């Protein structure tokens, strides 16, 4: 192992996270800490498996709960522990785990852990400097605290869906469970801020992440505008309030598109010279400012379409980037997978998984000069590390462990 790789794993060395969270937000957040050496233990049960374990894609014909690449993507570098939280004896096991952990994460419906005796007050009693983060849809309190949802619906509650769409059609949303990616980072920042505070003061604390509130961060100024002026911004298609031309244009080939965004005069003149093959359009006083171009978007978009429709995305990117015009193909999944820039960053990390097989997953969007993390081990099979967790970590003897197995606590 290289010297720097050792440092990377020492960042969170000795930090143990009992990860009761499931699906996207919580597991994604704790995975980033697992990459840097935190011991993250996913607590799961085959009786109520993580939704992603039954999701796709998965190798053809394999129906096991360990076969989902979607689950595998969010849980790399973690350990897997089976515990049936519905069982009365689960509380005792969970508390034993929390007593030797630094952080607890969970994303159950608010109130569930309290009901089974594993709420914040109970857990801090067994670990006084515990940091616990609950990551729910709309927070632990308030009239909608118990309301159900997930990233695909929460983006609608949060206002993202309403701002995505064509002005003449119904809003569409982003196509993915978008707010998951927002809440993930809010959770990481909050957890690491709390961990830093604990380092200095010895104090733990409880973190209430409302994914709805976290997502307010990505509305630019739309929310603060509505709060103070009553204006309600609406969906603009691909247009922008400040820049024109600004859009996505059809290219040669089936369902091929190129995004082009002109953000200053220089870029406009460069684009105009290319599409009109001369100075005429660049010098046209009717389009000589952003305000004039915003008023003439229909005709400008038609001119650009006429130029792009005949050309390949590769040619358009190369031609426009050569003269400094922001342009990029709308990357398909294949494009993203094969992208030369992402390849140069080694963005897709291969992971050999005994059931899913050899598949690549995303790496963090950041690169560290001093503590780059090594490729993490594959995500855990359900209950993969029971032996280590129950016997070595929690100190259950052979007989006790067998009893827990027979009683259905470990499942």
């Amino acid at each position, binding site marked *: 192992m290289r010297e720097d790789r050792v440092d990377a794993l020492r960042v969170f060395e000795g930090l143990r996270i009992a990860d009761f969270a499931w699906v996207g937000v919580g597991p994604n957040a704790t995975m980033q*800490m697992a990459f840097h050496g935190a011991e993250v233990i996913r607590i799961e049960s085959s009786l109520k498996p993580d939704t992603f374990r039954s999701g796709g894609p998965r190798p053809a014909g394999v129906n096991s709960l360990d076969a989902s690449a979607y689950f595998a993507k969010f849980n790399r570098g973690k350990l897997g522990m089976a515990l049936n939280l519905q069982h009365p004896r689960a509380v005792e096991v969970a508390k034993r785990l929390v007593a030797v952990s630094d952080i607890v994460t969970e994303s159950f419906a608010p109130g569930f852990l309290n009901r089974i005796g594993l709420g914040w007050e109970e857990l801090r009693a067994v670990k006084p400097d515990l940091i616990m*983060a609950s990551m729910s849809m709309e927070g632990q309190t308030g009239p909608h605290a118990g309301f159900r949802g997930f990233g695909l619906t929460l983006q609608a509650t949060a206002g993202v869906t309403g701002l995505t769409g064509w002005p003449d059609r119904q809003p569409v949303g982003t196509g993915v469970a978008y707010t998951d*990616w927002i809440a993930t980072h809010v959770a*990481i920042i*909050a957890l690491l801020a709390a961990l830093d505070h604990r380092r200095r003061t010895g104090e733990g604390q409880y973190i209430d992440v409302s994914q709805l509130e976290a997502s307010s961060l990505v509305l630019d100024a*739309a929310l603060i505008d509505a709060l103070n002026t009553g204006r309600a911004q609406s969906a603009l298609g691909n247009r922008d309030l400040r820049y024109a031309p600004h859009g996505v244009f059809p290219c040669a080939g089936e369902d091929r598109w190129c995004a082009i965004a002109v953000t200053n005069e220089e870029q406009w003149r460069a684009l105009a010279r290319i599409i009109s093959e001369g100075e005429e359009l660049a010098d046209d006083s009717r389009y000589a400012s952003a305000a004039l171009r915003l008023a003439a978007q229909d005709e400008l978009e038609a001119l650009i379409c006429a130029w792009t429709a005949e050309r390949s995305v590769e040619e358009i990117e190369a031609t426009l980037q050569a003269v400094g015009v*922001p*342009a990029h193909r709308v990357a*398909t999944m294949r494009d993203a997978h094969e992208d030369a820039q992402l390849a140069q960053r080694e963005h897709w990390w291969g992971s050999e998984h005994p059931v899913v097989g050899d*598949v690549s997953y995303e790496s963090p969007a950041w690169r560290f000069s001093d503590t780059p993390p090594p490729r993490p081990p594959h995500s855990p099979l359900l209950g993969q590390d029971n032996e280590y967790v129950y016997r070595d970590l929690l100190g259950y003897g052979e007989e006790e462990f067998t009893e827990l197995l027979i009683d259905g606590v470990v499942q």
Partner: protein
Amino acid sequence: MVAALAPYRALDLTAEIGALASRILAGFGVDVLRVEPPGGHASRRRGPFLNDGEGSLYWAQLNAGKRSVTLDLEDEADRERLRGLARESDFLFESDPPGAMSKRGLGFDDLHGAAQQLIYVSMTPFGQSGPKAQWAASDLIGAASGGLMSLCGDRDRAPLRPSVEQAYALTALNAGSAAMIALHARHVTGRGQHVDVSMQAAMANTLGNARLYWEMDGIETIRAGGARAFADRATRIVYPSADGYVAFVRMPRGMTDLAAWMRAEGVMPRFDAEYWAGISIAGSVLPDDDEVAELEAEIAAFFAARGSQQLYESGQRHRVLICPVNTVQDLVESPQLAARVFFCDVEDPALGRLRTPGAPAVLSRTPWLEGPAPTVGQHNEEVLQAAGSAAERR
């Protein structure tokens, strides 16, 4: 109460792509110095405005809780002042094109020698090196290059921008996470490092399972509009209500709850809830299109006769996975956000009392700090004098 990150200081030199990163850290207690050119940062002139063309709410939102110092980075004396500040700071956030800061003698390598503690976070469209590192870009290019756009929008039209500036926001959120990990790395190594955040990579990490479907099955996930896509299949999500839209997800098992809710509202569902409960989009048995259309029409009629907020309140009480497609005005009026006292008032030195969104996460022991955005150079005197006297003492 002292904020969680009170001991730390950050310098924020970013353009629009990055301002959110240090805005979040400021909320958790970091002393963030917004370094602006004399005359003020360009995004102070960006709308929406509080009053006719004046008082940028964009600036107020992205720079709340920061202090402002003006430095002309084209001037060597001011660059030296910045180096002095860097020696006394824990983070520096910047978003210039790769190499631009080095040309001014302000790159990571230039500063690291005298400021070993400094965590230097760069945010760029494609990262610090590689074939596209110098490509021209904007937020739209981030959404396109990362792939999210190809999943977003109606099938029969161009791919869509995912709402407002998501590529910028996600770049900054990633930078915030990375900065915090680098802070904990510093506790171990004793030194800061260069953190290189890529907007394209940030967006490429939002693709859900769609890229995996390409890699494993060779299937491009469809752009399904207001629907939920599983590779090349989709189920409808967005439906018109009486006063807007709602999002409803047809989950296996959820159809019995929907039928019970409809009956409670005096509507007799004609669909067979048990039959539909057995059908999952991810499964192998799919109903034919006519059956689906008939079912959706019945659900759509039920939703279309009721208001979005009413559907949310009553549907959720019947355990149905439904929510409103909220406008920003709906968020302003949200009973949930009101009950949690999410919005708060700050006294802005230039704009007066402003109502703003509050803490993105609530910590039980350490506060989220709400403060106004600074006026241009508001803190020049206290910051630069303190830095000057510190330099003299050395």
